[in-house]
């Protein structure tokens, strides 16, 4: 496997579904980073066959709800002094706010938008969500 120098202090986002690392990279706006960032694609994984990994040489704020929604199998390792100091296991979020929009054309959110767009989890396995306002069910597609 290709070796990437390990980091002293930062974040490793691991077990990203192969092929989707670039989207996460873009979402986190890592192209604008002023610190070292590595996007590794198609790394070998015993769990998944192939996976993507992002290594960030800095501790940045990450919206774990968004990551959980993108893929709850992703793991986030916070690195301090060259060691993993915290492992964050993502879960499918119960509530998501201002990440997706309701697609129901009859929904009030289609004409007024001065309040939060809130969705509540209906089925964690299907990752389906219900619009707080019109109850329409959606399965968010972020890829």
């Amino acid at each position, binding site marked *: 496997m290709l070796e990437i120098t390990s980091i002293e202090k930062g974040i490793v986002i691991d077990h990203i579904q192969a092929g989707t690392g670039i989207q996460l990279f873009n979402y986190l706006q890592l192209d604008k980073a002023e610190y070292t960032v590595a996007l590794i694609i198609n790394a070998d994984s015993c769990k998944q066959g192939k996976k993507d990994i992002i290594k960030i040489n800095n501790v940045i704020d990450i919206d774990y709800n968004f990551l959980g929604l993108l893929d709850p199998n992703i793991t986030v390792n916070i690195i301090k002094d060259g060691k993993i100091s915290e492992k964050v296991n993502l879960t499918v979020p119960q509530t998501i706010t201002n990440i997706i929009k309701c697609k*129901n054309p009859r*929904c*009030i*959110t*289609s004409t007024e938008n001065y*309040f939060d767009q809130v969705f509540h989890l209906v089925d964690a396995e299907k990752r389906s969500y219900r619009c*707080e*306002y*019109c109850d329409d069910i959606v399965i968010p597609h972020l890829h």
Partner: protein
Amino acid sequence: MLKNRSLIDPSDFSRQEFCEIFDLAHQIIANPEKYRKSCEGKILATLFYEPSTRTRFSFEAAMLRLGGKVVGFSEPSSSSAAKGESIADTVRTVECYADIVVMRHPKEGAPRVASRYVSIPLINAGDGGHQHPTQTLTDILTIQRLKGSVENKTYGFCGDLKFGRTVHSLIKFLSNHEGVKFYLISPEELRIPDYIREEIIIKNNIPFEEVEKMEPYMGELDFLYMTRVQRERFFNEEDYVRLKDRFILDAAKMKFASPSTYILHPLPRVNEISIEVDNDPRAQYFNQAKNGMFVRMALILKLLGIY
């Protein structure tokens, strides 16, 4: 406590809280005179962003019979919405003048949004194809008046079960009760949505059958809840012509019903119940409309904290 609460979705209130409203409605029916001045000095605002004469009259008559007064608009062209004002701003302004608000809006979820910007109670009087909780209150009160309770009864729902929101709300409410059984009578294209069948009926272990004809089951029913099958809901003209009469209730079909099968309909009726049925004592749809006013009186009194 129902004081100062809003009714947007039937799940906003507990079963116990619904019981309080129905108990008060029964008391009002028994002695309307007693409540004639209960809302003296109070103002109800009716904000109707789409016309619905029947629902608006029912709310306004309810408030007037309680001794209160009514302000409002009945179509958006005459309202601030026509000038592009947000519903949040409209209700915050209305809150300065009124004690309780009733809102009808074509957009689903509009009353939920509005209720978050006011501290006075707000009642959803219908939001798009979504919810119409006071129609469900009306239906339940009518069932209670005719047969004592909603439990241990067989209900037929006939017509457009796919788009009929009154049917969906009523099925949801009844599914929380013991001993209910459903016959869902509709053309195949207009069956109840999957989420109602799976998440509500099957999850609650309610016995049910989906059928395309009413006659064989009429004798078993305590209530037959009729809705209209609209021509434009059909995929093709042929099916419409073939099926339309099956879902029209007339005197001939009433012969299959038992002497205690009551006919309900949320109104307005077009042709799905022939007028020859109207004089049958089992036809209860006009009484249902009257019960709608009484249950709205009870709801207003509870939300204002007067009773």
